[in-house]
């Protein structure tokens, strides 16, 4: 068996499908995207090679920077709000015991098994100023009940709430699995030494969860940058471009404005930012690990 695996033909036949998939499904589209980014292609008919004009336009496009800011804001929301809550919830679930543990694990994970379209419409109705749940609740507490959360000024926060809520279950489940893998004898030993829950969490759970946190944070940043479906269905970037996110803006330019060339320049910037973010995050975690 060992000899078979050292045969170059065998290695090639095993590796080739993966390489071909990568080349044709990832590398070639990226190269094509770079090519079209240098054209004024509208998606129909002929096109001209216009060099870096699209990238120059991109630099001056305030909506692109706004969408990038919103994506980074979402990433910050994931890291600073969603994940701390998820890890604390996972730790609490771990201590709850059998029935309650299973029940709450399901409840918190429930939003993740619901279709994005349903989630978007659910929240659209919750936020609706004319008949939404939110305003009805406000009225019950004596408020005027005319809050338009998806309106100008508040829309981005309303969208962030939905996205953070929706992705919470995944983060929690991964942390929960990580916590379950921690040797329980460590907690027993800590308990004998007089450590309470808080100290156990800070001194045992968190340090041992470091690899899980690293993976989760990286995934969260990439998810934030890639965000599209929920935003598209909830606000489609509106009002105006207030809740515009990078992927949605790319789609809008390429397929609504029929600026296919420009859309590709956004996609090139988009891929570059995703790769750059991953490298930076890996560096940060690597440095911390070495320290």
């Amino acid at each position, binding site marked *: 068996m060992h*000899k078979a695996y050292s045969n170059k033909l065998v290695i090639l036949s095993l590796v080739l499908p993966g390489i071909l998939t990568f080349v044709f499904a990832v590398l070639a589209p990226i190269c094509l995207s770079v090519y079209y980014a240098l054209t004024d292609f509208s998606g129909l008919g002929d096109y001209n090679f216009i060099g870096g004009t699209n990238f120059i336009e991109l630099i001056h496009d305030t909506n692109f920077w706004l969408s990038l800011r919103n994506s980074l804001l979402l990433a910050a929301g994931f890291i600073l709000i969603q994940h701390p809550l998820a890890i604390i919830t996972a730790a609490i679930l771990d201590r709850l015991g059998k029935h309650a543990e299973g029940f709450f694990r399901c409840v918190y994970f429930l939003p993740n098994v619901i279709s994005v379209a349903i989630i978007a419409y659910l929240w659209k109705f919750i936020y609706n100023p004319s008949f939404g749940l939110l305003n009805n609740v406000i009225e019950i507490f004596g408020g005027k009940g005319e809050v338009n959360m998806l309106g100008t000024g508040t829309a981005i926060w309303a969208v962030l709430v939905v996205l953070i809520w929706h992705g919470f279950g995944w983060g929690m489940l991964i942390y929960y699995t990580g916590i379950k893998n921690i040797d329980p004898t460590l907690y027993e030993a800590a308990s004998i030494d007089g450590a309470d829950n808080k100290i156990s969490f800070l001194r045992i759970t968190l340090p041992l969860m470091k690899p899980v946190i690293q993976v989760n944070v990286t995934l969260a940043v990439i998810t934030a940058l890639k965000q599209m479906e929920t935003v598209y269905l909830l606000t489609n970037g509106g009002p105006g471009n207030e809740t515009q996110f990078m992927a949605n803006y790319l789609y809008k330019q390429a397929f609504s404005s029929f600026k296919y060339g420009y859309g590709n320049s956004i996609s090139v910037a988009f891929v570059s930012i995703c790769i750059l973010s991953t490298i930076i995050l890996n560096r940060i975690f690597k440095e911390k690990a070495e320290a």
Partner: protein
Amino acid sequence: MMKKVLVVILTLALTISLVACSSKGTKEPTSENGTTKEQTDVEKSEDVADPVTIKVFSNLPDRTSGQGFVEQTLFDAYMDENTNVTIEVETLDDEAYKTKFKAYAAGSKMPDLVSVWGQPGFIDEVIDAGILEPLHEEDYKEYGFINGSLDGFSKDGVIFGLPRNTDVLAFYYNQKMFQDHGWTVPQTYDELLTLADKINAEDIIPVAMDGGDKWPLYIFITDLMMKIDGSGILDKVKTAITNKDFSDPTFMQAADLLYESAQRDLFEIGFETTDYGTAQNLFTNAQSAMYYMGSWDMSMATNQDIPAEIRDNIRVFTMPVIQGGKATATDITAWNGGGYSITSSGAQKEEARKLLNYMFKPEGWTKLAWENGVCMSAQDFAQFETGNETEIQKQFMQIVKTSTNISGSPLGDLGTTEFKTVTEDSVQDLSIGKITSEEFLTGLENVYK
């Protein structure tokens, strides 16, 4: 030994998979509709008409009501009359439709018959790309198309599509609610705003507006422009686009009026995020007194899902005149928007042409659409008056019959697709006060700079 066995197994697996992948190429050549040459030969020898599959790509996903129902009924009838013809229909909603249309256009083969919009923002680029097949004008001499209705689908005197509807923009209102509260139909725009104040005072939404989709807002502003400027608005917008100059006072006045109207709560709170269905529901659930939309929604009067009390009391009026404006009450905002074209790369061009001509025989689309209370076609539909029309149908028919001028396509549909998206975004921003009227007009100019 083991190594050799493994190498042989893997090589065999690879060979089998490659052969499997290429097996398609070794088969008997197939025709467009998937039948083999052998099958076709047998059928020919039996003197049976060749089976034909016409592929249709439509923007009418609901096949059981409205225009989708009329379309499907015609397809079914055509297949009954031509037993060798199979019509395969693929449907998507407008925005998704346009995206996939483009994906089809980028490929080498398009469906044979497609939905199109006879507005420069859509059809100009498509015609320029050579995607549509010219139609024969003489085929339609007896079809009764309304004067000018084919213009949007033509370029340099050649027709590339046929219009499906005559779209008229109007305020749908709940007559019973109006009577119960002692409200009257406004004759001027000022009266409309005063009425809105009274309706708001009763804790009812004056006008349900689908501002989330944005295009109803640019139709609304076109309606205002029409009432301010009268018949010349279409040329004025086209000239403004060509000259990259929107400094004409009509545009500024219309923009100011839209902003003021929204500020005076003519529309519901959060109209900028309200979608089509929700806006219609606000009206059909009596949460709003009026609803601004096109004549394509006249089927509300026959929609059994809407409570009878509301359904039977829906009436319409067009945009009231604006004080100081040049337009009269009978100058309306209307155009011939959606329609059909045959594609030049379709496999069954001539069969698709036959189907298209069949659909648009006066007793086809026009009769069916009118009898089902779905819409007004772009052909002479008055000949199919039965006396059983809904009140809205009668009102719309009267509006069209008595119209003295029509606006033509709305603002956002008169430029490129980029102009359309900029118009959509900026008109929404204007209506919620995020930008000023000046910024709105500068934004439109900047698209072409």
